[in-house]
C-alpha cells in the first residue's frame, strides 16, 4: 500500500475531529504513519470544519493536494460537495444525505442530485445513528460506510473505537456496523 488520503467535511459539532483521530489511530495500530490536519476557529459556532488524514508507509505533508484524495468522507452533503475538487479520479466519496440546519435557503433535492452526479455514495447517517441508539453517532455511521475503502479490516476500526470512544461505546459500535452494511461492495 502506498497511501490513503482522506478529506473529512462537516460542520462544528458533528464529530469531524473524532473520525479523523480514529482513522489516524487505526493506521498507527497497523504500523503505518499518519498525519492529520484540521482547521477550527469559529467551528464551534456552526461554521465548516475540514479535517485531512493521510496514512501510508511514509507520509510527509499534512496537506492533501487537489485531485488526489482517495476518500472524501462527508458528514453533511453540502459540506462534502464543497471539497469535491480534492477527490482523485479513482477516489470514493461517501456522505450523509441528512442536512445540517443552514439559514440560507436552497433545494436539498438539487444538492443530492449533484452529489449523485459526482458519484457519491449517500446514506441517511442520522437515521441510522438513531437506530443505533445515539443520534450523535452519525459521524461513526459514515466512517463505517467508508471503512470498506481502507486497507485494513473492520476489526481495526472496532478496536480504535473501543480504545478512544468513552461515551455511548455500544451505540457507536452498532452505528459503525449499520454504516458498514449500508454499502454493499461488489466483489
Amino acid at each position, binding site marked *: 500500500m502506498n497511501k490513503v488520503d482522506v478529506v473529512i467535511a462537516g*460542520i*462544528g459539532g458533528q464529530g469531524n475531529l473524532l473520525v479523523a*483521530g480514529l482513522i*489516524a*489511530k487505526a493506521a*498507527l495500530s497497523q504500523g503505518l*504513519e*499518519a*498525519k*492529520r*490536519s*484540521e*482547521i*477550527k*476557529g*469559529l*467551528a*464551534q*459556532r*456552526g*461554521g*465548516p470544519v475540514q479535517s485531512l488524514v493521510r496514512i501510508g508507509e511514509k*507520509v*510527509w*505533508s*499534512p*496537506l*492533501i*493536494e*487537489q*485531485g*488526489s484524495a482517495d476518500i472524501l468522507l462527508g458528514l453533511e452533503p*453540502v*459540506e462534502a*460537495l*464543497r471539497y*469535491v*475538487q*480534492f*477527490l482523485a*479520479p479513482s477516489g470514493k466519496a461517501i456522505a450523509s444525505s441528512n442536512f445540517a440546519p*443552514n*439559514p*440560507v*435557503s*436552497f433545494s436539498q433535492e438539487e*444538492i443530492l442530485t*449533484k452529489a449523485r452526479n*459526482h458519484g457519491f455514495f449517500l446514506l441517511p447517517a442520522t437515521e441510522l445513528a438513531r437506530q443505533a441508539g445515539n443520534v450523535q453517532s452519525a459521524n461513526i455511521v459514515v466512517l463505517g460506510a467508508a471503512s470498506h475503502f481502507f486497507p485494513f479490516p473492520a476489526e481495526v476500526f472496532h478496536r480504535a473505537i473501543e480504545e478512544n470512544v468513552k461515551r455511548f461505546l455500544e451505540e457507536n459500535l452498532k452505528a459503525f456496523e449499520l454504516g458498514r452494511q449500508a454499502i454493499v461492495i461488489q466483489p
Partner: protein
Amino acid sequence: MSRQLWTGDEAVAWGAIQAGCSLSAAYPGTPASEIQEVIGKSGAGVPVYWCINEKVAYETALGASYANQRVLVSMKHVGLNVAMDSFMNSVFTGVNGGLVLAVGDDPSMYSSQNEQDSRLLAAFAKTFCLEPSDPQEAFTMTQTAFEISEQLHLPVLLRLVTRICYGEGQVETDFSRRAANEILLQHDRRRWVVVPSNARVLHKKLNARQRELEAISEGLPFNEIHLLAKKRGIIASGVAYAHVREHWNGSDSLLKIGSYPLPQALLQRFLEHCQEIIVVEEGEPLVERALARLDRKVHGKLDGTFPREWEMTPDLVAQALTLPYSHRPAEVDLPPRYPGFCAGCGYNRAFAALKRLAPPVVTGDIGCYSLAAFPPLEVIDTIVCMGASIGMALGLAYSGIKPVAVLGDSTFFHAGLPPMVDAVHNRADLLVLILDNEITAMTGGQPTPAWDNDGKAPVALEQVLGGLGAPFRVFNPNRPEAELDEVFRQAYAQPGPMVLISRSPCLTEGKRRKAA
C-alpha cells in the same frame, strides 16, 4: 520508546515538560492555545499561568528565568506584538534559566486578523529561532531550544504555524524527564538593568555574538543538505519542507532549513553546487531575500513563482516544480454556510439591542463577537486588534462623535484596561459595552481573572471599574427587549464614560465543561 500521535502543540508541550520546564505562561490565541492547555492537563505538575496578556506572560517567564528556572511562554503571532517590548529587551539582558518562546503563526489567517512571519521578529531581535517541519521535530526542537537558550543565555523563538500546531503526526518519546534547574538568584545589574549606559555595552556585545549564533545554527541536525547531479536545487523550511518532500523524487538537490540565523556555510555549499534555486518557505521570503543579493537564478515569492500571501501547499510546490498537476473543478454552485452565534447566546440579544440603539459608530474587538460585523447583525464597524475598541473610541469621542466600544471580558482585561483609564481621566464621552460571558470562549474556554478557581482571588469587573471611578451597570441580556432598549437608551444618553456589562455565561463552554 513509545510512538505517540501528537499535534505540534502537544509535541511542544511534552518537549518542554521532558526538558525540565518549571513554569509555563501564556495568553490563549489560535493556533497556540493548546500548548499550555496540554501542559496543564498533563499531570506533570508544571504550573501553568494564564496571564492577562502576552506581555505579562513574557515578563512572568523572564522573571522565572531570572531565578534560573526553565520556562516556556506561548502565544499566537499577533500576541508577540503585544509582548514585543519585553522580548526585544530580554535579548539585551539575556536570560538565566532557559527561556523558550513558542509562537503560533497563522498563514492564510484561519483565525487571525493578519499574517506575520515570526522568523522576522527573531531576526529583528537578533536572537535564535528554530522552525519545525513536523510534530516529531517540534518535540525535539523544543528540547534543543532550552539547551541553546542556556548555552547562549538568550531567549529562543520556536516558530510554529497553524499546520504544525494543529497537524498531528507520530512522535517517538520515552517520557523521560530532565530534572528541573535549581532555583538560584545571581544578580548582575550591568546585564539586567538596561539603562542607556548598560544598554550601549549590551547592544555591542549582542552584535558581536551573532557569529556564535550562526556557528550553532551551522551544526544543528535540523539543517540537511542533499547535493545531487541535477543542477536545480530546492531550499525549503518548516512545514513547506514537508510539502516539498511529498514531491521530491531525489533528482533535484535539496537543502532543508530548520534554524536561524541561516547556516551560512551550508547555504554557500548549496549555492556553489546549483545553477538554479527554488525557495519554498511559509510566510515572508526570508531565505529568498538572503540569497537574492547573490548573482544566482533564485525563484520564490519575490519573482512570483509563489504567491506572497496565504499558506504554502503541496499544490503550489507541484506547480513550481512543473510536475504534472491535475484536478477536477470545484463544485461552484453551493449554498454558503456562515458561522453564527451559538443557540441561546446572550451576545446575540445584546447586539440586537445595540443595533436598535443605532449609535453613529461601533468600535469592536477580538473575540466571538466579531460575528456581529457580518449579516444579519452588521452592527460592528471596526475590528483592529485586542483593546482597540476602547482605544479608537477615545479618538472618536475627542473628535465629537459619540461611539460605542464593544469588547469581551477577557479582552477587557487583556488590553481594554489602559484606554479605560484614559477614558475616565479625560471624561471621554463614550459608552463601553463589555460582553461578559465569564470565560475566554473563542480560544476554547480558558479562565479569566474573574475566576476563583484553585483558590485564586477573583478580580471582578465591578471592582476594577469601581476602582477607576467609571460608572457602570450590569444587565442580563436575556431580559425582555423593551427592558434592554431602556438600559441601552439610558446608558447612551448619560454623559460618558459609561460602561454597560452584559452578563450571561458562555453556553457552549459551559456544556463542554459539564461533559468533561
